[in-house]
């Protein structure tokens, strides 16, 4: 196993989700935060699951399915990430801005550099509740 494969394994060993998001500003100056990509060690997270969690959270239907979300604040997005943690039973969600993603692509000559560039950055959202952690443990223990 080479170093990049070890890095990949280490990152996802801890059951993380990596989320790339963007902040948009509409004509009235209102911010909104949108998800672009979300994936864990197994691959990209299913859009249907992400949408279902979003609808449960937001109770609105979104027409533009390619930009999941429409969170008014970054706190809302972080709350959504807590739901992702519970639903997908992971320990953390790492939030990366589109700007960081773009910068990583620009500065990476190849896939290995890109991956390492993405893994090093971002804001880590940890599982908030002790109860959440306990339930997670019990779920895993009895499965």
């Amino acid at each position, binding site marked *: 196993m080479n170093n990049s494969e070890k890095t*990949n394994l280490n990152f996802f060993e801890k059951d993380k989700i990596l989320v790339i998001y*963007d902040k948009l500003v509409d004509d009235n100056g209102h911010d909104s935060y949108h998800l672009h990509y979300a994936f864990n060690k197994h691959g990209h997270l299913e859009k249907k699951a992400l949408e279902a969690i979003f609808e449960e959270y937001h109770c609105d239907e979104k027409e533009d399915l*390619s930009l999941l979300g429409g969170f008014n604040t970054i706190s809302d997005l972080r709350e959504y990430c807590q739901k992702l943690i519970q639903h997908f039973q992971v320990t953390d969600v790492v939030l990366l801005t589109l700007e960081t993603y773009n910068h990583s692509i620009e500065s990476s000559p190849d896939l290995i550099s890109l991956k390492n560039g993405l893994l090093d950055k971002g804001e880590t959202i940890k599982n908030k509740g002790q109860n959440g952690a306990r339930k997670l443990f019990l779920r895993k223990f009895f499965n």
Partner: protein
Amino acid sequence: MSLTTPVLRELDSIFPGENWFFYWKTSSSLWKSKLEDFSSRVVLCPINWSIHHKGHEDIDFLGNNPEANLKKLVSVIRELGKEAIFLLPLGPAPFLPNGGVPHVLSRFPSLNKENAIYGVADPEGRINKMYSFFDNRVFLGFSFFVSKLGEFFYQENIEASVYGIQSHYLEGSEVCDYLTDNSRVFDDAFGRYLKEEGNRTVAQNMKKAKALNPGELEIKAKKEFFSSIKSLYVSCAQEALEGYWERSLPYIFVGGGHRDLLSRAFDFDESEIFSSGLFESLVRDFIPSSVLLPEDKKKEIIKRQFREIVEKCINVSVFQKELYIDEGTSQFLPYHTFEFYHYLQSEKFWSSIGVLPILKKQYPFTYKICTLDSLTFFEDKDYSEKVIFASGLGLKLKGLNTLLKIFMNGGKVLLDVSEMDEGLLKKLELFILENKLNSEKINFKCALEHILLGEGHFLTFYGKTLSPLSQNSKNTFWERVLNVFGLKCLKFKGGEDLLSFWNKRDANSLDLDYDEVRRLNIYNPTSYKKKLKITLEKNFSLLKVLDQIQSSVTTSHYQIDVKVLPGGSLSLDFGVFS
């Protein structure tokens, strides 16, 4: 996740797929030996602008850099009894560093509509970034390059044709154009476009409309600007290459999206996505390409699909059939029964009225989805087996006339008149009256008007009435409608997630009394065993089962049962008679 680093074979890098030859990736002294074992008669050579660009207004085609010697390349290919066809990228080329733009001109990375930089992984794991083709310097550089290319072809009497490539990728089920640019470069170019005298009224309308409909007119104007620049690159190449120019071709590069970049970086297994990408490309009337996929990601079934469908069928129909086919032989060419025309090339509308879900279930991959702009009547085409769906929204007089020609030549035309222009509706009514055609009006789920003329059927319906109904109601509606036409099309039952492709050839002397022979290729890209039942209609006869891999077929009088294991595939030949 692989535990060893895959070794790229040199041949895979030079011949990335579908008979393409990356001539710059190997020494020119080895071109002959590399091409000797190349099985196809036609060698498709994408032109790499960068390697021919030496400096300001200095273009090399004759070999200051030996790998840039196109004259030698064509000569070597012809010496081997093969034909050279050049593919000229008319925008960003995802398979080339910097999207094909020479380094000195690559200043501004282009952004997709979500403001992400285009990064595309090539088979070797390098990331190609795309640069804006709305940069004036890039356009001037390109037009100079193609003018020199044209001069070179004429002066050296090069015996080769040139096709343009317009590059796209799939993001989910959406087709995206690499030429799309959401960066400041595009905005600046758009601003200059609005300042031009002929376009000032557009700018004035935008200012007036802003209070009422913010952004809508601007979006429309930007789309028109985008289309005009895209056409400009095409016409630039066409004028420069005149007698050598054939036409431009829309390609979808499987594995070329942003999601794919992340999948490659984190080594996710997306082989099912690649497989379905090929078939989604065909349905949308694009040529699929696997040249971005590394060898280790091309599972055996993907290789088979690209070989059987793209190399042996699509390429033949696209690139001058006479080069592939010897006289006296008949060749399998792509075949589909249904065609959908809408002002947007989108599945959404056809799914909302319920026709696409039923076709996907019962007649999968027998259709293609196109824009209204591409609706054309061909004199030599047999329309008796074609079913044309068209949306009245955005339909112009020229489109209506084309639909009527298709109808008068035996085609089955279904026109959604919900949002059709009133003037056009009147013209249609006038056509029916003037030609004394009998029309039947009924109300079944929605208002229908049916006109019959020989083998031709013309049916108008109201899609807006259908949309709110349940899928079951829509299924009943469409089953009854399609029954009217007496289609020569085999119905499927089951086999979800199987991928299939139809092609057909004319009957030859060995085919007894059949009018034509149709071949159905079936593939299972999933990890599960799949079963499929095909109802054998009265005009069809199963001739043979071939190329069976991990699959089995049992037949009864009216039905064919197919079982395909994971990674399996097979082909079925059917004789079709009247």
